[in-house]
């Protein structure tokens, strides 16, 4: 990858999720040179792990397909996967960015034929499925993975499986000698779009995510709906694989909470409302949902989705932050708290609990230059002169639509920097 050429008229986009893809493509389609870095083996980010988007209930892969096609068609974007920024120095119009590229152990010869995967046997927790499923040591993240190229897990490289993978590949695509690389890129502007991670549900101790099998997080629930996911597309209780009949959603699980994330994560209310429709779609009247909330934040024109769900007789809303969860019979759990509308104490039994965990920004500490302001919620503040612009969930807790919108704005700010540089250099 030594031939990566960047100049101070190049825009670097860090993060290949929906925001990074959008920023990179919008800038590239304005004729700018873009390098897009992604830490994972394939782009798509968090949205690729979702079943549907609210409020349209359409499929994230649908939009990703368009983005990937734009990416394939546009020679202005240079995509580097398994690449992580380790440091940025310099100033707007002239940044020096150090990048660590981890070895994929599979080169561009790969045809994604899958023979290496068949040849190996050791299994690992599948990150794409939040560890709810196993994958092999040679794998493709998902059928939608882009680049459509396999990855060899570093843990098998030295062992038998590594050799087997290499042997199975007829196209010399498996290269076990691949080494980690350090790149140094000179770029004019940076769009930082490393997105978010789900807040660690185990930290919300009163809810016993680490103690009760049937307490799961909303991102895990989302994976259950994927026909190729851990449950084959079925909504089930992790404890016994049975269909739940009485699901609880706990809002603000880790958000709006000074013990956890102080900010409101914005998306969780809508995500829960959306997930109740999955239940309706799959289990119909056989499963009830109860949403425990402080405020339902179905902002602006998507409030009609909220009202639609409210009209569903199988969904109940309780204005209450659940105090804690204790164990019940048959691996059920008991939710303890008070309904604050008139103070009704409850001790409600549910057979599955979904924690609407919030968004935790992944802006790293100590990587960006000191001039870049990172606020107490770990989001990048906008400074139009800085040359480094947060996009999507690196700038605020945003839904997909707002993230794409925000990334488009970030792309323009980056374009302004490189346009200025081009003007100065003639």
């Amino acid at each position, binding site marked *: 990858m030594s031939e990566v050429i960047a100049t101070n008229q190049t825009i670097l986009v860090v993060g290949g999720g929906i925001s990074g893809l959008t920023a990179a493509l919008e800038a590239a389609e304005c004729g700018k040179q873009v390098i897009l870095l992604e830490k994972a083996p394939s782009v798509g980010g968090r949205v690729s792990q979702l079943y549907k988007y609210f409020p349209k209930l359409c499929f994230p892969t649908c*939009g990703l397909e368009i983005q990937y096609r734009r990416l394939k068609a546009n020679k202005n974007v240079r995509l580097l996967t398994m690449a992580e920024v380790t440091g940025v120095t310099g100033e707007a119009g002239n940044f020096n960015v150090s990048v660590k590229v981890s070895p994929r152990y599979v080169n561009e010869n790969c045809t994604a034929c899958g023979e290496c995967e068949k040849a190996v046997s050791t299994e690992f927790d599948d990150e794409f499925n939040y560890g709810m499923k196993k994958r092999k040591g040679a794998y493709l993240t998902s059928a939608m993975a882009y680049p459509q190229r396999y990855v060899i897990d570093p843990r098998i490289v030295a062992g038998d499986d590594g050799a087997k993978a290499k042997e199975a590949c007829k196209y010399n695509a498996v290269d076990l000698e691949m080494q980690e690389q350090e790149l140094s890129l000179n770029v004019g502007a940076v769009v930082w779009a490393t997105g978010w991670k789900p807040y660690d549900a185990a930290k919300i101790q009163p809810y016993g995510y680490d103690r009760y099998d049937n307490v799961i997080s909303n991102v895990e629930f989302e994976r259950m709906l994927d026909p190729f996911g851990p449950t084959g597309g079925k909504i089930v209780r992790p404890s016994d694989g049975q269909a739940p009949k009485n699901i609880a959603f706990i809002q603000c699980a880790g958000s709006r909470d000074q013990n956890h994330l102080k900010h409101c994560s914005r998306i969780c209310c809508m995500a829960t409302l959306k997930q109740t429709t999955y239940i309706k779609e799959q289990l119909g009247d056989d499963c009830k949902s109860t949403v425990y909330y402080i405020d339902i934040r179905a902002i602006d024109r998507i409030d009609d989705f909220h009202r639609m769900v409210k009209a569903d007789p199988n969904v109940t809303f309780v204005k209450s932050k659940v105090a804690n969860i204790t164990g019940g019979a048959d691996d059920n759990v008991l939710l303890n708290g008070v309904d*604050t*509308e008139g103070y009704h104490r409850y001790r409600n039994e549910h057979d599955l609990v979904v924690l609407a965990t919030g968004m935790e920004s992944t802006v790293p500490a100590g990587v960006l230059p000191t001039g870049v302001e990172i606020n107490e919620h770990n989001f990048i503040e906008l400074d139009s002169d800085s040359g480094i612009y947060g996009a999507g969930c690196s700038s605020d807790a945003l839904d997909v639509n707002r993230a*794409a919108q925000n990334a488009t704005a970030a792309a323009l700010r980056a374009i302004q920097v490189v346009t200025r540089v081009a003007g100065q250099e003639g």
Partner: protein
Amino acid sequence: MADMKIGAYICQGCGIGDRLDTAQLANVAKREGKAAVAKEHEFLCNAEGVKMIQDDIDNDGVNHVVIAACSRRAKTDAFSFEGVTLSRANLREGVIWVRPDTDEARETTQEMGDDYVRMACAESKYMKMPAASGEQGLLRHLLVVGGGIAGMTAALEAAKTGYTVDLVEKSGKLGGVAGEMYKKYPAKAPYDVLADNTTGEMIAAVEGNSAITVHLNTTVASTDGAPGRFSVTLATESGSSNDITVGAIIQATGFHPYDIAKLPELGGGKSPDVMDQLAFEKMVKANGGAIKKADGSDARNVVFVQCAGQRSDTEGHLPYCSGHCCMTSIKQARYVKDAGGDATVIFDDLRTPGADGEDVYRGGQEAGVAFSKGTVKGVEAAGSGLKVSYNDKILADDTTIDADIVVLATGMVPASGPNPYIAQDIEAAEKDGNADLTAKLKAEQEAPVTSILNLQYRQGTDVPHLKNGFTDSHFICFPYETRRTGIYTAGPVRRPMDAHQAIEDATGAALKAIQSCENAALGRAAHPRSGDLSFPTFRVEGCTQCKRCTVECPFGAINEDEKGYPQYNEARCRRCGTCMGACPVRVISFENYSVETVGQQLKAVDMPDEFSEKPRLLVLACENDAYPALDMAGMTHQEYSAYARIIPVRCLGSVNTIWITDALNSGYDGVMLMGCQKGDNYQCHFVKGSEMAHYRMSKIDDTLTQLNLEKERVQTYEVSITDIQRIPQIINDMEKLIGEIGMSPFKF
């Protein structure tokens, strides 16, 4: 262009060579596909294979390349050749990966492979290299309509990117609603403090920017043309007019506050001390921070009623949430606290989202603003003040609170122009039997709404609405997709939003407008077929001026000339082909996508006779969702019928019924159309394409009846990209169905 020379390259890798007789495939390409060159390669996508092809292009005059290997979605980096047409026969995901590796299946699998090679060659033969029309050059100049904070932001950001701007404002001053604010929230954390209104600085920046020409007291009298060459007439209040040419347009016309007189139960219009948020803001600003009643006395108690006339199904209320009102009321309540008074916010759900929202909420509490979850029942005069009765939901108590001023947090009504599709929407609502909606739309149609842009478009004067008058995109992933290429809306006219969001929104819209100019100059399509150079042309001698194409274009791209012939406006066109699908006389085509490129493919398929027990199923699959799903079915080894022949189409809207007729006449036993979801929550990337196809296919029954064929032989499906298991299933179901109803008699 030199003579056509087809080079067909057949890959043997990934098991293709093991499962298929590639020599036979090469033979098919040569003999039937008329390929001048047909070569097999054991690993076509590696450097050596690619070089072989490139050498043939460079040295041997191959200008039509057929790759018979993996799916058109795979190995795109390797199979990317300049200056030639490219067709892909999908032997991997489309053949060997969806068929069992058994002796019995070998023959039918080979037949599939043979057919796909025939089809790719046939397509190749009818493809031409697309080239831009040159209708417009690069014009780095934008029109921004609306001089509020969104419009000014768009102008400044465009200017900063090297573009010039005409900024049009209907009123006599810049600043819009944001200019009326007493204070604002800071743009950066900590958000729990209030900042001074900086709109004045922004106005000065706009006025002082030589790249921006401000037109006050001005409206847009007419807009014609296309991205890269919009000709716009500006009209001033004084009656003078001014013609300008711009590359793209940003509409940032903002909103009107909902009329509080429609809320008499909340005291709206009944007392001067019941006001909306904007009126309150103006009052505080005028008084330099003092909170005064209409009679000039100091107000000590102010009650804020959230969701006034919004989030409500009540007739005449706004059904949506305006998003900003909770934050705005908290800000205004703080004015009251700062002035030494008491402020209570009565809310249903307190909506202060995101990184700033909770800080704002806490800041309000810290300042001593009281919050109460409740439903306001009424606001009445009581003595010299007002009395608000409400149900306190927390204390489960019907109670009252005295107030000197009541602020109704009413919603935003978008300042959009008339909805060009209102007549169509009414028709659809009537058809659905939705009386409420019909009545609502009719009322909307009757209300006089002034056009903003006065587009001289066949399909109406303004940007289509999505819902409730907002001009938002329907796509989650693509927030700026208006249905008028090169015209982007930003700020509260697009979606309810606060000033900070409007600034972000306008910045993004500025990018889209700039991008539109750059694309237009090169003849490239905008999203979603970004970069596509092909565009529709028509054979004028065949055209019957029936206007179907001009009416059905989802993007209003096509105008009519004075004789009624279509004018395609390349830079407005999104290249979906809906016009091509609409044309009853089949005179519309793209260079590389036409009635022929598809029609010849389906005809190229070898048709076994009626008694062979080998039916043929034609699948026309939308390339955006259905085709990728089929690919992934292959990758995950879902088996489907060996009798299916799949042709990707740009959009189901581009499917011309002649293909169906041709297929039936050629002896296909079943025809399956697979497109995206239509209707209110459409997922069709071209908005109406899938819907148009469903509509057109509903008329195909006549054809079937004429041919004396069963109706079930032609089916249209709504599928999605995740239907990786379902699509194979419906194909197999069709095979089963044919088994039941029998083979088509039209096999010659």
